C-alpha cells in the first residue's frame, strides 16, 4: 500500500514517507537557502536507495525546490542575479578544478580521511563563529565587535583590486574578483566533499561579501538551481543514477516546503535566521563526528554518496 517501485534505484519506497521527507528538506531550503543534500542523501540511503542514486536524484529534486524558492525570493526582491552569476561562474571553475584535485588527493592516499576531518573542522568553525556572532546580535551587542581588527585591512585589500562594480540588490560596491574567487573556492570544496556547498556559500556571502542575510538566501538558491541542473544532466548522462520517479515525489513535497520556508524566512530577523542556520551547521557537524566515532554495524558499504 502506498508503495511505488523505482526502476533506477531498484527498490520500492513509501510515497507518503518520501513526500514528507521532500517537504521537510524543501522547508529548510526555503528558509536558509541551502540545497539540503547533507540531510536528504542520508535519509534516502536509510529508506533503501543506493548512495549514488540518492545523491543524483536529490540534485534533480533540488532543481525543483530551488526554482520554487528562487521565484518566491525574487518576488520579495531577495535575489542578486549579478552576484549569483559571478559566484556561479566561479563555482563551475572551482568544480572542474576540484574534480582534478580529488583525483590527485586519492592518488596520494588517505584522501577520504583528510577530507572528512577538514569538513568536520570547517563546519565546526563556521557554525561556531556564526552562532556566537548572531547570539551577540540578538543580545544587542554590535555585530561589528565580532570582527574588529580584521575589517579595515580586508576592506583596504578589496578596494585595491580592479573591476569594482555596484551590486544594487545587495547594496554593496565590490570588485568582481572577490565573488569570482570565493565562488571558485566553494566550487573546489563542493567537488572534493561531494556536497552542494550551500552551507559554505551562505556564511561566505554573509561574512566575506557582507550581503544582507535575506538577499543571501535568495541568491544562494538561485545559484544552487544552476549547479544542480548541471549535476543532474551530467549524472543522468554518464552514470545513469538519476531516478526521476523518486525525484518527482521528493520535489512535489520540496517545492511546497520551499514556499512555506520562504514565508518563515521572511518573518525571521537576520540574526534569528543566522543562529538557526548556525545550529543546523553544528548539528550536521555533530552527526558527522558521531558517524566517525560510532562503530558501524556493517564494515562494508556500496561505493558512492556523500
Amino acid at each position, binding site marked *: 500500500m502506498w508503495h511505488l*517501485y523505482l526502476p533506477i534505484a531498484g527498490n520500492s519506497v513509501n510515497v507518503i514517507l518520501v513526500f514528507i521527507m521532500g517537504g521537510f528538506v524543501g522547508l529548510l531550503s526555503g528558509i536558509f537557502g541551502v540545497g539540503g543534500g547533507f540531510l536528504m542523501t542520508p535519509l534516502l540511503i536509510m529508506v533503501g536507495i543506493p548512495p549514488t542514486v540518492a545523491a543524483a536524484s536529490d540534485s534533480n529534486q533540488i532543481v525543483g525546490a530551488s*526554482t*520554487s524558492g528562487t*521565484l518566491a525570493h525574487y*518576488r520579495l526582491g531577495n535575489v542578486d542575479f549579478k552576484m549569483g552569476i559571478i559566484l556561479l561562474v566561479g563555482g563551475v571553475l572551482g568544480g572542474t578544478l576540484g574534480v582534478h584535485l580529488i583525483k590527485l588527493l586519492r592518488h596520494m592516499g588517505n584522501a577520504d580521511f583528510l577530507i572528512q576531518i577538514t569538513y568536520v573542522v570547517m563546519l565546526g568553525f563556521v557554525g561556531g563563529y556564526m552562532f556566537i556572532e548572531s547570539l551577540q546580535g540578538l543580545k544587542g551587542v554590535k555585530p561589528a565587535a565580532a570582527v574588529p581588527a580584521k575589517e579595515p585591512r580586508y576592506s583596504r585589500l578589496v578596494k585595491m583590486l580592479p573591476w569594482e562594480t555596484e551590486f544594487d540588490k545587495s547594496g554593496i560596491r565590490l570588485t568582481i574578483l572577490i565573488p569570482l574567487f570565493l565562488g571558485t573556492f566553494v566550487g573546489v570544496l563542493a567537488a572534493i566533499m561531494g556536497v552542494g556547498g550551500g552551507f559554505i556559500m551562505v556564511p561566505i556571502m554573509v561574512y566575506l561579501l557582507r550581503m544582507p542575510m535575506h538577499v543571501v538566501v535568495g541568491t544562494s538558491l538561485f545559484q544552487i538551481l544552476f549547479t544542480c541542473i548541471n549535476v543532474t544532466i551530467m549524472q543522468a548522462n554518464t552514470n545513469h543514477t538519476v531516478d*526521476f520517479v523518486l525525484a518527482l515525489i521528493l520535489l512535489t513535497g520540496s517545492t*511546497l516546503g520551499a514556499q512555506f520556508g520562504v514565508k518563515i524566512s*521572511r518573518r525571521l530577523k537576520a540574526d534569528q535566521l543566522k543562529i538557526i542556520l548556525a545550529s543546523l551547521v553544528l548539528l550536521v557537524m555533530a552527526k558527522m563526528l558521531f558517524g566517525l566515532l560510532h562503530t558501524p554495524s556493517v564494515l562494508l*558499504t556500496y*561505493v558512492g554518496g556523500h
Partner: protein
Amino acid sequence: MIKKTFAILILCLAGLGSPSYTAYASTEVTVTVQPDRIQMGATYNGERITVTGQIPADTDALVRVMGKEEKYNLKQKGRALGVLWMNLGSVEVSNVPSIFLLYLPESNQSESTSGPEMWSALKVGLAGVREQADIVGQHVDKDILFKEFVKLKEESGQYAVVANGVHYSRNDGKMRWFSSTMALPATLPQGTYRVEIFAIRKGDIAASAARQIKAMEVGMPAWISALAFNHGALYGVLSVMMALIAGLLTGLLFRGEKGAH
C-alpha cells in the same frame, strides 16, 4: 499477474561429480513454483513465490533461490588513528550470487536434520557461496569481509537464511508433501533465478530438482529504465525540465499570497 502451473521437472544430481550426492532415483523430487514470472510494475514491492512439491518420505526439503553471479566493488570501513571510522580501502567481491535465499525445513521433523552444522557441511548454504567467492581486499581477514558482505546483502533482503521456512502437509509413507512461501525482495534485480529443492537424507543430498523464474520490469518502470539507460542525456534534460516546471507551477500557485507579507 500471470500465474501458471508448471509440469514437473526433475533434476537428479546424483553421480554428477559431487561426492556428497548419493545416487537416488531422479523421479523422487517433484516441484512447482508459482508464479514463475515476476512482473516489476509501478506497484512492485517484492513478491511472494510459492514452492510446492513432493520429496521421499524419509527426507527433508531445503529450498534455495539463487541469482546469477555478480561482482561488487565496495568500500571498507576501518579505524583511522585508532578512533575514527572511515572508508580505508576498496574491496572487490566476485563470483557471488546477486540473490541468495535459503529456506530451511520445519525443525524436529526428521532425524536427518541435525542442526545448522549439517546444512553448512552440505555446501548448499552460505558456506558454499563463501567457497566460490573471490574476495580482493586489504587489512582484514577474508572470512570477516565475507561475513560483512553477507550482512550488507541481508540489510536489503537480497540474502536470507530462513529457519522453519519449509512446511510439510502429508506423508503417505512413500512421499512427503512440502510447501514454502518465499519472499523475493523489492530490491530484486531483473534477471533469471534458479529455484532449487534439495531432499536431504542423513546429512546427504539424496535428490534435487530445479526450476527457473524470471523477473522483469513492465509498464512505467520498464519505460523509464529504457529511456534512462539508452538516452541518458535526453533523460537528464527531461528530468531537469520536469523539475523546473514543477518548481515554477508551485511558485505560480503561491503567487496570490504575496500580499500577505
